[in-house]
């Protein structure tokens, strides 16, 4: 079996080319996922680039991204497969005249009548794919079991039809916002990656690559202020995407050097709770 990546460094460089700045952990685990053929469970606060990681890996390897958005009430007919019963009905009615029952009853449970859903689609694909199972913590514990077969064996068993094995092993990413504890069975099958807020230097680099027209000086200032704010005891610390929004705003306003006043006036882009905004504004203005 051939591997997608040669080395950790290659993953890192590749991701950088598609404007995703990975740290040592992220690149290392993406590399391992390929080598071990295991899915990756990505966990961390909202807005730190968990979903973006899967997208960027897909872009980097030139694979098709198949996405399954999880929600409460997701079931197998939406995640795995469904029989196209309308087509089955038509097939039966079309053959009503002749008495070819023997032909039909096996026939209507054939591949022609199968509607593939994201998970089945990912393993039957001929070309390379990246499968993203987004916000897996939103489904009920019972529904998680649906994922287990595909995650460990890369196959789907359909009672009327048999077992469909993957033609090639896709890279699988599951993301979770950690609103509930995932089951042991699921965790055991995955590599675990915790994506946290980036450190200051990486955040600065992210701002520089993602926001057009931002100067080095401004990016540095932004990263420092955001780090300062994250240290406060807030309801919701600013995420990377909010940092980027803030940077874009400052660029649009033509600000080259943020002072306390300007920072205070644009805080509502960074923070989403009134109590947080008040607290941060207070901290930024009359410190010491």
């Amino acid at each position, binding site marked *: 079996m051939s591997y997608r990546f040669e080395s950790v460094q290659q993953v890192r460089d590749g991701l950088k080319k598609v404007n995703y700045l990975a740290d040592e952990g992220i690149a290392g*685990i993406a590399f391992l996922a390929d080598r071990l053929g295991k899915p990756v469970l990505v966990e961390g606060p909202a807005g730190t680039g968990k979903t973006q990681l899967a997208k960027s890996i897909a872009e980097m390897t030139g694979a098709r991204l198949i996405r399954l958005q999880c929600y409460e009430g997701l079931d197998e007919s939406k995640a795995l497969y469904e029989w196209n019963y309308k087509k089955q009905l038509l097939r039966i009615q079309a053959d009503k005249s002749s008495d070819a029952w023997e032909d039909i009853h096996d026939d209507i449970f054939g591949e022609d009548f199968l509607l593939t859903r994201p998970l089945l689609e990912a393993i039957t694909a001929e070309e390379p794919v990246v499968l993203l199972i987004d916000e897996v913590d939103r489904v009920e514990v019972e529904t998680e079991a649906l994922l287990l077969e595909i995650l460990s064996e890369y196959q789907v068993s359909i009672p009327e039809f048999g077992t469909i094995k993957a033609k090639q092993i896709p890279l699988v990413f599951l993301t979770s916002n950690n*609103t509930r504890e995932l089951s042991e069975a699921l965790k055991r099958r995955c590599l*675990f*990656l915790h994506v946290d807020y980036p450190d200051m230097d990486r955040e600065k680099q992210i701002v520089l690559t993602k926001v057009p027209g931002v100067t080095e000086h401004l990016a540095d200032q932004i990263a420092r202020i955001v780090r300062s704010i994250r240290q406060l005891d807030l*309801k919701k610390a600013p995420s990377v995407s909010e940092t980027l929004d803030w940077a874009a705003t400052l660029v649009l306003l033509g600000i080259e050097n943020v002072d306390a006043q300007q920072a205070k006036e644009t805080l509502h882009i960074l923070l989403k709770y009134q109590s947080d905004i008040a607290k941060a504004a207070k901290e*930024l203005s009359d410190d010491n």
Partner: protein
Amino acid sequence: MLDLLTGFITELRNAGLPVSLTENLDAMEAIQHIPIEDREAFKYALGATLVKNHAHWRSFETVFEVYFSLRGPQYQISENGDADDLWREMQEQMQQGEGRGAGGAMNSLTPEEMMQLLMQALRSGDQALMRALAKQAVNRFAGMEPGRPVGGTYYLYRTLRNLDLDSMLEKLMEASRQEVGGDLTSLEERLERDEHQSNIEKFKQEVEAEIRRRLVADRGAEAMAKTLRKPLPEDVEFMHASREEMAGLKKALQPLTRKLAAKLARKRRHARKGPLDFRNTVRHSLSYGGVPAEPKFKFPRPAKPELVVVADISGSVAAFARFTLMLVYAIQGQFSKVRSFVFIDGIDEVTEYFRATEDVSEAIARINTEADVIWVDGHSDYGHAFEVFWNKYGKDISSRTTVLLLGDARNNYHASQSWVVKEMKQKARHVYWLNPEPRSYWNTGDSIVGEYGSFTDGVYECRNLRQLESFVEKLA
């Protein structure tokens, strides 16, 4: 290598991390793809396969440092495990390392020069220089001797005391001010301070790591890991938590409340089905040609309980009361009403503090400073506090109310007035007592939890977050 990894995993299990057999096998496979020389990548490879909960990451890191700190490229160790040999060898290697790091023999530096160098390293945030200096500082100040039975914290304290990092921060700030030639605006001042502080923190970690490395070389990984073993955040005892552990607990509390709220809401929604919803069933029967093939049921809407929390906030149990209040208020959406009272020997209602602000920790801070809880001498008097509570607020307790009494029931031999709890039990839906003390201490000395407990619906031991969580889950 296999032996090392097996020892490592055994130690992880000893530290309380759940590592299954498959995860163990995964780790073995993973490290075949990653060279051990690449320390960071190696660490993440092990972490990704063995640790499936971010709260456990710190424990993992400590154990990893202990087991693998000597296996970096600079620290090749010969196979004979003689401690003295090791010690000498390490020092030689360290001197080579320093030569590269600082561009000169560091041993000959005067203390002033060394401080100068350290300041420079901290200002530029130069990691390699900081590491070299940390080694040097440990060499000079810690006074480590092989075989001496002293904990790492002692050496750390000695080293840091000699370096005097607090005044270093001020000096650094002064230097930044001079650099711009004049005063900094308050924003700049703040940012600079954060920058320096984080660099100093990094340096401290380097020193700590260095001390740990040497201790491991001296004593061996297993013995070292045992002394460093720390409880996981959910197992830290409220009553004996250090300041650092407290901060960790607070951090662990937030995701926990989110999880708890989601779980409770889900439980409420998916509880037993309600009675038949006739209108909805008929509506759906239309798609089956009028046959009610798919019965529909009403969603049950169980009443949310009303909660009254009465907490002892005297010295020893204050931390526990704070955590319970935080937890309760973080999920207050799950209750129709929450009222809270705090007492030492007097009692005061503090519900208002929580209503006035969104920020629970601010309300808790106000409790500590403003609540009027001292009646005579500021020693716990459960009896008096309960009596006053019953006279003033007893009429508000109804059959929908659940009362939580928090405390260790150490009454300083005052009158117990346990009739209050008895009457409370008759009026309220439930009365529970949460005790942060280990069960074996109950009813010893001046603790009379048994007397109060006999009138409640149950006394629960709540020594750590795990126990507190499982109780709250049961409650709502």
